[in-house]
């Protein structure tokens, strides 16, 4: 675990040096900041708007950072040939993948923390301090982002960057729409299609599970039980993604 941690810290520091991280962060902060200019709305609606825009921005730009960091984590090491010196050292390939996952999760954490601090500052500025529901929403977004990153990392162990990028974005969209998809499938009479839909529903992570902002924004509380269950759901998917990544990385020649 110490070796994985060493790789994680290195991944974190290297990702911090990437311009992409700062560009996405600055754009996200600008979007969050811009949400306060909806002052023509009634005070209550303005707060809803700030929360809605901010949660969406943290989630969307966080997803971009998670995908780009994970993409660079494996292919960057191969392209720059730093992988040769790493794998010639007494580390296992699972040390490498777990280290990369922890490293990119630290970057995601930093990114979510910075955007959240800005957002919470905005709430204080509007004299509406955040409640525990706000933190629950941010926490579930964080788990979702780690899941998105872990899937991209896993695919990076066997696929090209171009394929991985398209796949990750496609999955991001499908993962958010899958609930609607299954509702539509229920109306289809074809049994084969229904079964296929059901299979996909159970294989593809349902990112909407992590989305509680719609409830929080309108003042509906989400229970700790739901947060716990959804976290567990996320952890199971992350574990499966990492195991698949490790499996393929053990077979990969660099």
């Amino acid at each position: 675990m110490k070796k994985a941690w060493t790789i994680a810290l290195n991944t974190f520091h290297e990702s911090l040096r990437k311009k992409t991280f700062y560009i996405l962060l600055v754009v996200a902060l600008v979007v969050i900041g811009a949400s306060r200019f909806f002052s023509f709305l009634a005070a209550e609606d303005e707060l809803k708007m700030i929360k809605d825009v901010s949660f969406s921005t943290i989630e969307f730009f966080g997803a971009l950072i998670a995908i780009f960091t994970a993409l660079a984590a494996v292919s960057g090491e191969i392209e720059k040939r730093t992988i040769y010196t790493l794998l010639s050292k007494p580390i296992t390939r699972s040390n490498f993948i777990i280290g990369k996952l922890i490293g990119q999760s630290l970057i995601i954490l930093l990114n979510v923390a910075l955007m959240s601090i800005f957002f919470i500052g905005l709430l204080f500025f509007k004299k509406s301090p955040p409640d525990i529901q706000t933190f629950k929403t941010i926490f579930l977004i964080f788990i979702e982002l780690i899941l998105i990153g872990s899937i991209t990392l896993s695919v990076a162990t066997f696929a090209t960057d171009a394929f991985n990028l398209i796949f990750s974005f496609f999955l991001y969209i499908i993962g958010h729409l899958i609930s609607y998809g299954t509702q539509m499938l229920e109306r289809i009479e074809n049994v084969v299609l229904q079964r296929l839909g059901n299979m996909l529903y159970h294989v593809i992570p349902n990112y909407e599970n992590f989305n509680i902002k719609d409830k929080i924004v309108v003042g509906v509380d989400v229970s700790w039980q739901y947060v716990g269950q959804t976290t567990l759901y996320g952890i199971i998917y992350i574990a499966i993604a990492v195991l698949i990544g490790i499996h393929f990385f053990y077979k990969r020649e660099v």
Partner: protein
Amino acid sequence: MALIETRELSKVYTLSSKKSVTALNNVTMSIEEGEIFGILGPNGSGKTTCLKLLLGIIFPTEGEISIMGQNQYSVVTKKNIGFLPENPYYYDYLTGPEILKFYGKLFDMPPGIIRERTDSLLELVNLNNAKNLSLKHYSKGMLERIGLAVSLINDPKILILDEPTTGLDPIGCKETRDLLKKLHDSGKTILLSSHFLSEVERVCSRIVIFHKGNLLTTGTLESLLEEYKAENLEDLFVKAIRKFDSETGQTEEDAINLQSSV
């Protein structure tokens, strides 16, 4: 005692369903403890492939590898190996001491030992004055030297060096040769791959010549010069390659060695 052994080691890369390239073909060799063993061969002869196989970075198509009695993937074995890749590239935002600390940690070395080794290695490779410089400001020669320091951080029993003098000026080459002799005197087993004949001639106790993935010949320089009736290593090298090409009927144009796998 053989420290490293390969038995009928082959590596075939599949390019498509009909084409494959044999990078290494049925190589059996052994490297004894305490020797400087040179792998010689033209570009594309299979030297780097052989080293990557020994380090477990790529996987053999056929054959076996034994390093200190274990297979090449063993973490225990790797604790005793230092590796310098060809044209080494490291995380260029780190300084020399930082890069040594990073790799030292991967060997589970205590911080105090890493500090001690860092100081002595930076002095050994003459990079003490560049301590605060990040690697992106290093010249090619400096990168080669920090690479050598990285390969020595764990005080390895086996040192595997892939073209260690590439990019070095004549003084740098001489310093590297002197260093290799010093390391050899301290009991290290060194496996050195190079296409610079003079370098190999001066430092290696035993050599092997690779060509188109095949092991042409192996032995001490003296015994091979006698066997091939050659005047020097260059002459020996040319004779061994020509002999192989005439025996197999291959020409220089076959160098890519594309074969039909069907």
